[in-house]
């Protein structure tokens, strides 16, 4: 099994790729996949990883929860808005900008910080919990 952080980065890359495709090709057909992947990824981080960050760096963890919250607000709007509405693809662009920023913060700062807090056993356990969640939902 891949390490926890490699697994999360892999998720990030996959979602970034799907969002870019959607915007470049003005093609909404992969939206349900994007939404499902994002929801499960966020749920996994929120349930298993962020609580560990909360113990050491509450401010950073709370900000991460808020960024997910904003991502969910846009996902909800995208679900409610007709796919042929001319605002739909611009909304995906806004979602992508928010996620790019969030991903950059996680990969360049937060993951390094968490690595120092967690033992390799804990990392492995969290990776397993997230994998299990994914296999249940996806």
């Amino acid at each position: 099994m891949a390490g926890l952080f490699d697994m999360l980065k892999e998720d990030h890359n996959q979602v970034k790729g799907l969002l870019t495709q959607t915007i470049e090709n003005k093609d909404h057909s992969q939206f349900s996949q994007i939404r499902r992947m994002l929801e499960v990824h966020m749920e996994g981080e929120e349930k298993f990883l962020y609580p560990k960050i909360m113990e050491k760096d509450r401010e950073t963890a709370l900000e991460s929860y808020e960024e997910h919250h904003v991502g969910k607000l846009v996902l909800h709007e995208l679900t409610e808005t007709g796919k042929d509405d001319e605002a739909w693809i611009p909304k995906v662009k806004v979602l992508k900008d928010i996620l790019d920023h969030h991903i950059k913060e996680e990969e360049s700062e937060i993951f390094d910080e968490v690595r120092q807090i967690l033992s390799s056993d804990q990392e492995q356990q969290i990776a397993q919990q997230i994998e299990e969640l994914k296999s249940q939902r996806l």
Partner: protein
Amino acid sequence: MEVNSVVNDVYQMLKDDHKNVKGLLNETLENDDPSKFPKIRRELEAHMLGEEKYLYPAIRKDETFLVLEGYEEHELSKKLLYEMDKLDKNDEHWMPKMKVLQEIIEHHIDEEENELFPKAKEILSKDQERHIMGQIRREKTLHVKSYL
């Protein structure tokens, strides 16, 4: 508003608003002090309303994507402002929300100043720009007064 401080360029006027709000957001976060929130909310709402009513529609036909993106960024900011208004200022989620609002707004401002305003400059005549500036200024005065 003092007559002396009135600028004659719609983009400069909007950039001054941006700078002002960025400063207030920074202060709030750095000093961990929510007291300027009503002012931030008032200024942001008036500024967004002015852009949405007068600037965005004038360039929407030529720059549809950028304008629709702008509306959406405003929409999200308003949602966060609303949540922050309802939430107890001492709640530990309040400042993190403010931080996320700051990030969204700074990103939006970058896009406006580096992409949308230069495009608008190409599209609009000097007369149109002057007209829009007058409309935004009037709207702002009305909006800010409605809070007093």
